[in-house]
């Protein structure tokens, strides 16, 4: 056993070597999540505590990212805000991912009226720009975290559906699927056990970049006053509140802006890395 493992180890390690992007993205994300989780230990400030004697102080040793117009520590708020923005981002993509993948697979494999129904729904939603539709839904339902999740859920699944449908369409007439059909496997088994595993990797890769889109959407809604309610330290809301002071205290808006950028880059690297990894394994 030991010999065998020893023999196999080197080539296996070479094949599954973690791509640099994946490592970097994961590290950035872990740092952000860790910082957010450990926020009470990392800073002694309360993200909500106002101090009007410390309004709009520039970044310093005491306030790494400066203070905002209520004298609140921006670094603390950015850390606490990560929990809100990342939570919404992750929760918001779960439903569209699952629903989109299933709808896409069913549409692709069954064809006919199922395909027509799913794809017409996709067309309808595609006809309106993503951001406009999300804003319209949230404006209709009212601001708040749950409504953001609903709005993104309604709109975002179509990308996954289209992606997976394409994969399934390409694969469903391949020999191995024909073989499965000849063996008398059920449609559900063919789709779930054999077609989906091959169609999922591109969807999973897209998921990473989709989270970036959702983070930006959440903060855009916050910026427009349609997102999380003030005074929550949500990044978009912080940018919106801080933008008035862009001349007197640029840090109040810029720091949460950098945080959005940081989270975006982390997920994009993660997605890229994941794609590399899956490509290697696919070969």
């Amino acid at each position: 056993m030991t010999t065998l493992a020893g023999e196999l180890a080197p080539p296996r390690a070479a094949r599954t070597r973690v791509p640099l992007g994946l490592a970097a993205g994961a590290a950035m994300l872990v740092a952000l999540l860790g910082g957010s989780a450990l926020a009470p230990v990392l800073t002694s400030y309360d993200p909500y505590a106002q101090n009007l004697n410390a309004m709009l102080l520039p970044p310093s040793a005491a306030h790494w990212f400066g203070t905002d117009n209520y004298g609140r520590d921006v670094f603390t708020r950015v850390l606490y805000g990560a929990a809100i923005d990342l939570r919404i981002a992750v929760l918001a993509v779960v439903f569209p991912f699952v629903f989109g993948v299933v709808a896409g697979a069913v549409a692709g494999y069954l064809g006919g009226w199922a395909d027509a129904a799913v794809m017409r729904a996709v067309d309808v939603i595609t006809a309106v720009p993503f951001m406009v539709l999300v804003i319209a839904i949230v404006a209709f339902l009212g601001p708040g975290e749950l409504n953001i999740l609903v709005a993104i859920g309604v709109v975002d699944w179509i990308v996954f559906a289209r992606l997976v449908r394409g994969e399934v369409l390409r694969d469903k007439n391949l020999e191995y699927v024909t073989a499965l059909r000849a063996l008398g496997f059920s449609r559900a088994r063919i789709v779930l056990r054999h077609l989906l595993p091959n169609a999922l990797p591109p969807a999973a890769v897209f998921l990473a970049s989709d989270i970036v889109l959702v983070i930006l959407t959440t903060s855009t809604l916050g910026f427009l006053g349609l997102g999380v309610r003030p005074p929550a330290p949500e990044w978009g809301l912080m940018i919106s509140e801080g933008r008035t002071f862009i001349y007197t205290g640029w840090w109040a808006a810029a720091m949460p802006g950098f945080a959005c950028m940081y989270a975006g880059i982390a997920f994009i690297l993660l997605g890229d890395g994941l794609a590399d990894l899956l490509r290697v394994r696919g070969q």
Partner: protein
Amino acid sequence: MRAVISFVVAVGLALTLFGPAGAAGYKTVVQFGVNRAADNLDPVTQDANPNIWAFMQIYQQLVRVNVKGDGFVPDLAQRWTVSPNGKTWTFYLRPDAKWSTGDPVTAADAAWSLQRAHDLDGPWKWALEAVQSIAAADDHTLVITLKEPWAPFLSDVSLFSNSILPAKIFRDAKPEDISNKPVGSGPFMLTEWRKGDEIVMKANPHYFEKGRPRTSELHIRYIPDDNNRMIALQSGDVDGIDYPPFSQISVLRRDPRLDVQLNPSTAVSHVMLNVTQAPLNNVKFRQALSYATDRAAINKGVCYGFCVPATSFMPLTTLYFNKGLKGYTYDMDKAKALLKESGVPTPVTLTAMLWAGAGDPQTATTLLKGMWAPLGVTLNLAPLDRAAATQRMRALDYQVFVSGWTNDVPDPSELANYEFDYVTAKSYHTGYHSAQMDKLLAAGMSELDPAKRRQIYYQIQDLAIQDAPLIWLYYAPYTIAINRKMHGFVQMATGPWLFKDVTVEQ
């Protein structure tokens, strides 16, 4: 293309050189950037400042409030007399006044306009409540008879809702015509209106004051974003802007090209409390909140120290403002004691309605959240769009709402009735109703002796503080920033701008 451009340039030059008020070295167009857009220019039905301030360029009233906001000056009426019994007012109109169409302004126009303001159900119906009849005695004499002597009558006539409109044009017109295509006798006339973007006005060639307005065109441009408005001013795109935020005053003052003004206003900012629901129906609880509100801190956090902490419901410049009042001075111990007395169990959760994206009210609400927390009161912020918030405010479907008022007349009766008379506006949409207050308000309207009236309004201020249906926060000056090349600009204490003397150097 080149030909077109040179043609445009040539026409532009010609306009600059030969324009009506195009005295050499001055611009023919005044550009002014504002933070809120007008949407309706009917004087009788509107109550939002952007509408009022825009149509005040177009209409005249019989008399006008003076710039300081504490007296009256003639406008369409040259002079006026009142009968010894105080019930008959006679206004003598200036014979040289003309509509922007060139037709003369007559007493019949005035009678029709005031009758319309009297009959229409609108937010300002109370202003002519005391009127029995309005009649034109001849072309230039208007006689108004009152049901009883009415102390603030001149004040009420000066109100913008009592603007004089041409009867001939509007008598049989649809109401939207007044809203959208107003005609008046004021210094400017509306020529083009791209709603939500820009109002273009030209000098009224028939305006009675010769040589005014001094600039032939006025463009009121809607630039809602504070930073964009300031950039537009600094880049020379506009000649002046309203409402540069308090936080930017010190920055703008460093720019030598700009004149940053803090103009005396008739404004008061306050927190409306819906007193029809528990726990805000408990007066002790409201007093506790009032004591827990640190006005000095709000002045610092919202106004950067440029405001005055409020001590009464009345703005500083109002007639009979009681300078001796202390109002609610910040006292957390007293607040806690009152809360205990009130019997309201803590922790309490209140919801503050908020205009999404509203700058100062949002800041004030956020500060209140911090201030009331030690009292055991959790204030949740609920942003809504403007229309929805206004609707819920009017339906008394809210708990806490930060808003503000500007006096349009020097007399205290306008605000006192709006704020504490249930019939007028559900006591500023708080639902407050007090028999004692009703009696004082009625006395304030009919008492003619100024010394006695002063005492009545002092009592109203005391009772208001005691009952605390609102929490009064601060008196803010109007902020204006104009290019130093702009001369003659005046902002009245009641808010509207006067552009008729304005010139802008090239």
